[in-house]
């Protein structure tokens, strides 16, 4: 998120990290998750699923904050997020 000023306690705020999962064969390529992810984690990939729909992929997976909005807006039960385990955080954090 872009701040117009960096909050004074930015260093101390623990931002939750998430992992986003895509169930490819359920997706119908509507793009809602891509458009409305608050962290622009997702973009259309070049891949098609078995029904021929264009899929989203996580292009900035480390930016996911596990807000579940993609999961809530998806009409197809095709995407969801889960909290990243502490070890995953250590690797990329």
């Amino acid at each position, binding site marked *: 998120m872009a701040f117009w000023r960096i909050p004074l306690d930015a260093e101390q705020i623990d931002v939750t990290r998430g*992992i986003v*999962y895509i*169930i490819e*064969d*359920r997706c*119908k*390529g*509507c*793009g*809602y998750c891509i*458009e*409305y992810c608050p962290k622009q984690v997702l973009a259309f990939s070049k891949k098609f699923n078995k*029904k021929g*729909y264009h899929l989203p992929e996580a292009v900035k997976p480390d930016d996911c904050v*596990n807000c*579940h*909005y993609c*999961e*809530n*807006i*998806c*009409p*197809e*039960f*095709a995407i*969801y997020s*889960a*909290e*990243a*385990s502490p070890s*995953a955080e250590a690797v990329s954090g």
Partner: protein
Amino acid sequence: MTGKPKKAAEINQMAHPLDDLLRTDRIPHIWCPGCGIGTAFSACLNAIKASCEDLDKVAMVSGIGCSGRGAGYIKLDSFHTTHGRAIPFATGLKLGNPELNVIVFSGDGDLFAIGGNHFIHAARRNMDITVICVNNLNYGMTGGQAAATTPYNAKTTTTPVGNPESPFNLPLMAYASGATYVARWTILHARDLTLSIQEAINKKGFSFIEVLSPCPINYGRRNKEKSLDTLKAYQDKSIIKNNAHPADLETDFSKSIVLGKFVDTDRLTCIESYDKTCRLG
């Protein structure tokens, strides 16, 4: 968004958190790409998960139409009724077994045109059920004809030069008929919608929630609106105004669309009133 957060390691990577409430063998569902019914349905399942402890005491009833397919995708007791008759069926279920949490999930055509009379009378009697109406502004399943909810001037297969009629204001109708809980959201407001359905399920009495939802294939196409354009319109045109007067809620996308919770009152439910009046002693 609901329940305890799961650690990534604990969950099967390819199991959606709602899979336990879905008939997964029927997924992908029949709804078109970009159709909002799936999102409304997902909000409904999340709300059921969050507010119903005993899932054996939850039943979903749908009528006919695209949204009417909902009952066929939930892995709980459910019934896909004849056209317009979801509410009478739900009324029967509730009277027969008052312990049940009965949720009607259906569309605007089914609930307000074909079954319009049932809606107003269930609200009048204050039947203790929750009615979720996915409003896609037209008859989607039969090819996009004008409905009782089609906005003024909108193009449909039966109004090719624009709809000369005015649409129903659904929250006003619910309020005027006696509903004790009335709200309206769009699928873009998935979180508020989920919380609102939760509240409605927990509420005693007739609860009504209208969900504005894109129908890109039939309504959107004829009004030059792709599904993302419809969501953009929801984002730009909607104003959240809780307790707004139901008379000020017409669906006119050339102005603004008011969302929020408009009614939350209490009065005797149908069953309570019957017991008080007819089961003397």
